[in-house]
């Protein structure tokens, strides 16, 4: 390429620029190439954006959520999502507002019926001060993105049987549902990397044992195994410990696939000349592993990890759904979906299925992102 640049002086500036761009492409590191290709993958880019938004909201959850986990409103149990209006009955434009709510019982079915009280208008206020919270346990604040004046009620996604705001709970639940898979993936990444490396690098009986264990773990259905493990968590432990234990349980199975890949890569890389050269130069085994071998298949690992996240999201949701995962007062999407277990609940209060949409979006986004990463990491495409 460079030869060409020197010998053809008659290139226009534009051509030269294109050539340079092309050259930078050839000289780019593996990571730059991956980023470049990923940026071209529309679906992956879109998914990344969605995930970015989800995680951003989760990070500032207390700010975005109008209420917290403990607050409830006994007078607004099972309320459907509040409608947001812009124009009043008499055609006046006042910006986003909600009407006051009244509750009646249907005289025949005794079902609760909520109606809008058109007399009362509560405009939605932004950056209001409400319940105080500690952001990340560090900064005390009472700022919320939105709220209505005293007396008005705004439940964007409706309420549950205890009158708790589903919108707030979904946001606060995402703090658990979206981070557990990450923590679990991180843990299985470490486990897989370490055990896979040991297995592949040393071989022999150690390799044999690890392989057998992987085989056993792969031969057990994951959910029943998760259930058995989380049944071992004693009741009534603090939420933080619960969180950590669930993470450990999820990564208990997740590492096997990765370890297999790492082992295979080690097996094939072990005999490469550059590893032999490093060994001859007296570099220690550990250093060879983490300085020379691991970077060689890092991209592959990252792809693998991303594609492993969806099953962890579903795993956590399933366990919490069954009551074997996160326990109240902490919440997660799975815990919220527990309310949707009975048919009657869904039939009467269909908004209880809303957390499902978030689960599906998160899983889809990670799937697409993983696909994009895989395509980007594949040097042959």
């Amino acid at each position, binding site marked *: 390429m460079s030869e*060409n640049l020197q*010998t*053809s002086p008659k290139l226009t500036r534009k051509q030269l620029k294109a050539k340079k761009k092309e050259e930078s492409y050839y000289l780019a590191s593996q990571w730059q190439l991956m980023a470049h290709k990923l940026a071209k993958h529309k679906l992956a880019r879109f998914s990344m954006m969605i995930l970015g938004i989800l995680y951003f909201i989760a990070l500032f959850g207390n700010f975005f959520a109008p209420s917290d986990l403990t607050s409830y409103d006994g007078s607004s149990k099972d309320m459907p999502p509040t409608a947001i209006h812009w124009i009043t009955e008499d055609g006046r434009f006042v910006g986003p507002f909600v009407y006051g709510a009244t509750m009646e019982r249907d005289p025949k079915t005794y079902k609760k019926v909520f109606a809008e009280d058109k007399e009362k208008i509560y405009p939605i206020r932004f950056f209001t001060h409400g319940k105080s919270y500690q952001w990340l346990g560090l900064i005390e604040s009472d700022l919320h993105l939105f709220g209505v004046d005293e007396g008005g009620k705004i439940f964007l996604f409706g309420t549950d049987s205890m009158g708790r705001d589903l919108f707030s709970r979904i946001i606060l639940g995402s703090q658990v549902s979206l981070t557990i898979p990450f923590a679990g993936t991180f843990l299985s990444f470490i486990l897989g990397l370490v055990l896979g490396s040991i297995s592949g690098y040393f071989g022999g009986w150690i390799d044999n044992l690890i392989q057998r264990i992987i085989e056993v773990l792969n031969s057990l259905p994951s959910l029943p195994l998760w259930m058995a493990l989380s049944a071992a968590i004693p009741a009534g432990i603090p939420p933080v410990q619960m969180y950590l234990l669930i993470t450990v349980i999820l990564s208990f199975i997740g590492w096997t696939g990765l370890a297999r890949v790492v082992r295979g890569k080690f097996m094939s890389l072990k005999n490469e000349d550059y590893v032999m050269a490093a060994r001859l130069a007296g570099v220690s085994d550990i250093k060879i592993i983490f300085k020379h071998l691991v970077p060689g298949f890092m991209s592959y690992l990252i792809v693998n990890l991303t594609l492993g996240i969806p099953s962890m999201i579903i795993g956590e949701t399933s366990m919490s759904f069954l009551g074997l995962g996160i326990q109240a007062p902490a919440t997660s999407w799975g815990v919220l979906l527990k309310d949707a277990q009975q048919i009657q609940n869904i039939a009467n209060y269909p908004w209880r299925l809303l957390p499902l949409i978030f689960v599906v979006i998160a899983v889809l986004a990670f799937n697409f992102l993983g696909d994009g990463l895989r395509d980007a990491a594949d040097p042959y495409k």
Partner: protein
Amino acid sequence: MPIIDIKDLCVNIQLDEGMLTPVQGVSFQIEAGQTMGLVGESGCGKSLTSKAILAINDKKCRQTGEILFETDKHEVVDINKLNPRGKEIRDIRGRQISMIFQEPMVAFSPMYTIGNQINECTRLHITKDKKQSKELTLEVMKKVGIANAEKRYDQFPHEFSGGMLQRALIAMALVCKPRLLIADEPTTALDVTIQAQILELMQELQKELNMAILFITHDLGTVAKMCDYVSVMYLGRVVESARACDVYKRPLHPYTQGLMGSVHKIGTLKQERLFSIEGTVPLALNLKPGCGFYDRCNQRIEGLCNVVDPELCDMGDGHCVACHRCKKEATVHE
């Protein structure tokens, strides 16, 4: 009457970035018993041309022009007019025109025995009888020099060496005694001694069956050994075509001269650098008018070569070349 007569063959691919034209207006003909060499760097459209003859290019490729082929019943069909998925073209493929591919290692499915895959040809085109078809297969396997053919018949591709697989591939191409054989760089994947054997084998079989061969290569040494005629391709066009010996003695097109210069000959000084053509074949995307070789040519004429497409002109004795400079010099001489 030539067996195959290609007139103005073009292959287009519509991409998001624009129209890709890897083959643009190729014409040549081959007669029975003759070998035509198609020479050029990688990316110049040789393989696409050869696949176009069998209409086995990717679905995205559109072919225009005429590919007139004379069948063994002495009818002339235009392959470009046939449905590429239809029965007629399938009867021609393998039976009348067959092809030897570049890499024998991947040309066979790993799932079936070699015998099964060669056999498939005869069962499709010659006989439905299993026994007879097996006999034909064994016969051709022996002919291409696969020893122990009966045993080899039931073996899988991964049990064959590269050279043996290439022989099996040739056997598969020849089992129906085609009229035209397309050999797409049949020896590049093999080591030198095997190469010579395979080439000899092809020549022997050509004599025996009196077939036409289209020999595609970038190796000029092989061309000298194998071919009667040579067409040099550059950027999807034939830039020079002549009898093989003429091209060697007196290459006219600057590109051909460059190619010849980059071949190592016995007798050159050790220190002497091999001549190389600067740059690479550009992508045939949204082509501008003018000679495709313009950017890399050391004899270009400004204002002519980059404006007007050079046409293939006969410089006498069937030696054709598409170059403004050559044409100019020829008229000056006259």
